[in-house]
C-alpha cells in the first residue's frame, strides 16, 4: 500500500447547484499552496470539478476524497446510487442523461467522463445499479 500523507474527504450533496464545485475549489487551493505544478494542477482541478458535478447532478449524493503522497494525487468519487446502467455508453462523448436544470446551467454535454479520462494518468470506473458508482483517478506529480 502506498503511504498517503494527506487524506481529505468532501461530502457532496445531491442537487445542490449552489455549493457544487466548492470541494474542487478547496482541493485546488490546497494543492496550489503545496506547490503542485500548475499544468498538473489544472488537470486535477478539471477532473475533480467534473466528477464533483456528476455526484451533485446524477447521484443521490456521495463523497469526493483526495489523497496525496510525495509522487501522486489520487481522487476517488464514491456515491450510493443510482449506478450507471451502461458504462461503455456513459463514457462516450455526447452521452448524457442530465435534466433541464443542469442543462440550463451549462452542463449536460456528455463531456465529463471523457474529460476525466483524458486528464487523469489512470482512470477507472466501477458501478452497480442500485448500489452506486466509484471513480478513481490517479495523477503523477513528476
Amino acid at each position, binding site marked *: 500500500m502506498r503511504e498517503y500523507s494527506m487524506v481529505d474527504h468532501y461530502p457532496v450533496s445531491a442537487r445542490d447547484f449552489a455549493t457544487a464545485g466548492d470541494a474542487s475549489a478547496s482541493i485546488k487551493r490546497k494543492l496550489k499552496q503545496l506547490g503542485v505544478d500548475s499544468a498538473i494542477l489544472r488537470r486535477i482541478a478539471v477532473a475533480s470539478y467534473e466528477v464533483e458535478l456528476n455526484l451533485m447532478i446524477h447521484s443521490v449524493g456521495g463523497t469526493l476524497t483526495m489523497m496525496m503522497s510525495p509522487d501522486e494525487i489520487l481522487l476517488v468519487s464514491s456515491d450510493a446510487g443510482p449506478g450507471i446502467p451502461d458504462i461503455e455508453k456513459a463514457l462516450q462523448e455526447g452521452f448524457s442523461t442530465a435534466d433541464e436544470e443542469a442543462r440550463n446551467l*451549462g452542463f449536460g454535454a456528455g463531456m465529463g467522463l471523457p474529460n476525466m479520462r483524458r486528464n487523469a494518468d489512470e482512470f477507472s470506473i466501477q458501478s452497480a445499479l442500485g448500489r452506486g458508482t466509484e471513480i478513481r483517478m490517479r495523477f503523477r506529480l513528476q
Partner: protein
Amino acid sequence: MTIAGIVDILDARVLCGSENLGQEVTTACGSDLMSDVLAFVKDKTILITGLTNVHVIRTAEMLDIHCIVFARGKIPGEDVLSEARELGIAVLSTCHTTYTTCGLLYQAGIRGNNDCVPQARPAAKAE
C-alpha cells in the same frame, strides 16, 4: 493584447477586476457549455459566454481563466461578481452578441485554442 485592449475593442463595461486590465490575453474561447470549456481550454485564455450563473466563475477558477466576457449586455448577479472579485478574475460585459464578440476579437488577432477530434457518430437508437 491586454484585457484593457479587449475592453476597447468590445466597447465593454468592466464589472470587476479593473486592477487586472494590464494582463496579457492571447487566446479566447466562446461557449455556453461549461463541460466543453473544461474539455478544450488548454492555456490561459479568456472566456466569452452568455451564461451568467456562478458555475461560469467556478469553471474559470478551475482553468485559471483570468477574464470573462458576458455577451449581449448580460450582467451577472452580485453573488457571482463577488466570487469573481475574490478570485481576481476580470469580468466584462459587452452589448455585442457572442458571435460578434468572437469575430471582433478574432479580427484583432486573438485566436482560439483547441485541438478538436471529431466525435464518433452517435449509434442509431434502437426503437
